[in-house]
């Protein structure tokens, strides 16, 4: 836990941070909105006392209510990993600026986030499906994507704890998905 890092981040990004800078174990977490992604990432990458030059991960997350994109960054100036959570993306039309202007290697990770969640990365020159076939219409990792024969939604579900999904409202039988995506 690097307290100095927390102080630096709070002083530098005071206007764009949403909520506190949280720290746990060896991770520091900041939350921002989609509009400030480009500025924050560029500042984190370029500024000499931040120098977060390694993007370790770019992940999409579907929290059920909203979508988020999470970046994990490493810098030689601090002992912690920095986690940047971009929250507030709507589930109907999630759009966020792309990080490929800083790291070319983020292109495929954004393609994967698009393929799995449907998040549109504006500025990515190659935003198409990467894992699923190109004519696939659903986004598999969304929380409302269930398989037709998912045991968790069968009438016998709930007998064992492993057969329940996270949302207790979805305990009923699932309608057969016809392949129309969200």
């Amino acid at each position, binding site marked *: 836990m690097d307290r100095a890092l927390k102080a630096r981040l709070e002083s530098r990004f005071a206007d764009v941070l949403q909520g506190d800078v949280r720290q*746990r*174990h*060896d*991770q520091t*977490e900041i939350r921002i909105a989609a509009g400030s992604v480009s500025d924050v990432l560029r500042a984190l990458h370029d500024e000499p006392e931040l120098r977060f*030059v*390694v*993007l*370790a*991960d770019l*992940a999409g*997350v*579907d929290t059920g209510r909203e979508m988020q994109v*999470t970046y*994990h960054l*490493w810098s*030689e100036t601090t*002992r912690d*990993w920095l*986690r940047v959570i971009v929250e507030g993306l709507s589930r109907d039309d999630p759009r966020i600026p792309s990080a490929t202007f*800083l*790291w*070319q*290697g*983020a*292109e*495929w*990770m954004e393609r*994967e986030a698009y393929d*799995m969640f449907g998040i549109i990365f504006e500025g990515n*020159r*190659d*935003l*198409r*499906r*990467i*894992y*699923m*076939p*190109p*004519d696939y219409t659903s986004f*598999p*990792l969304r929380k409302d*994507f269930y398989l037709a024969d*998912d045991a*968790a939604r069968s009438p016998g579900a709930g007998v064992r*704890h*492993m057969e329940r*999904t*996270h949302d207790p409202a979805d305990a009923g039988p699932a309608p057969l998905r016809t392949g129309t995506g969200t």
Partner: protein
Amino acid sequence: MATTASVPPGTHRSTDDPNVLIDDEYALYEPIPPYPPRTERELEFYTPGDGQLYLNMGPQHPSTHGVLRVVLKLDGERVIDIDPVLGYLHRGVEKLCENADYHQTISQVDPLEYVSSLFMEWAPVMAYEKLLDVEVPRRAEYIRVLAGELNRIASHALFMGWLALDLGGLTPILYSFIERDEIVEMLAALTGQRMLFNYFRIGGVNGDLNHDFLSRLGDWMSRAVNQIEANLGLLNENEIFVRRARGLGVMDSETALRYLWTGPNLRATGLPFDVRRAHPYSVYPELEFDIPTRSEGDSLARYLLRVEEIKQSLRIIDQCLEQMPDGPIMAKLPRLLRPRPGRAWAAVEAPRGLFGVYAISDGSDQPFRMRIHDPSFIHLQSMAHLLPGHLLADTMAIMASLDPVMGGVDK
């Protein structure tokens, strides 16, 4: 498929000959591209220049990296551009992990990079331990490091065999597999399985060191260095291999950072970035080892670097055996794990690079999101930067020197 460029007069094309029956269905079967290009990059790639052709190295090809499809845009023998197509091994591991217990996800992530399974288990286990605030006993940590470094040696030995196989040499892979079989039998004595070990547990490891494992390990260590030197001498001193691999697929460190390279590939370009030193985890701070680095950035450097890493791994194994503490091998945890809601990220230095897992817990007994970051995925992306300009025969060699494993690429 030939372009619609102008055909010199007097040429008789088979499509013009009424006596030749052309099966039109083959043209419809899978044209390149299979659908109209939609993105900028697709448009740029699928617009052929004069005299350029598209060659499909389909999902099944003799290189042993698994199922990767690469569409090459060729001008004669020279590669102009490439478009890799992934997803032929996408098994939906992240979705399956969301519907499984924390303990079950450990066996689910094994087949990601199946040649280095223990590292695939290590990262999620570390992430869950951060979520649960569990402290792992020191003996378990040392056993993890020991088994992990053995797996690293096996993986690098296999890399050497594959690289030689893709360059045309059929013998070194036999020697690789002799090495790998010995190490893997050792790990089978320790973990019970030859390949997808399922050995690490949240809070420790599954079984303690036993006599079978230790006797095999001792026997192997006594001749390991000489055996590895002899095997690698097949390639190090082979003029054909050296002259082919030198200068192949050169990457400089700035571009490598921009392409998010990690692991031995990045260290071969000159940057000494190793997760074990950059962000130490487990008991690596107590172990003494060097981080080999090379500055050339070509395939030969990537190969020689992994050779050095094998030697450093042997050094680490020696220290682990000397410093192995006594104690329990697993922390006391309840059977049904329900961590507090939170997020955790953990990254380890897998033989291919930085392997990270981002786990989100919502308080229930299944992870809410289990995001897996795989190094081979990132390295394959930079093929579009490395391959153009090389000849067709070098494409697979460059890919082999990047050491991708399609299980991890496709998840």
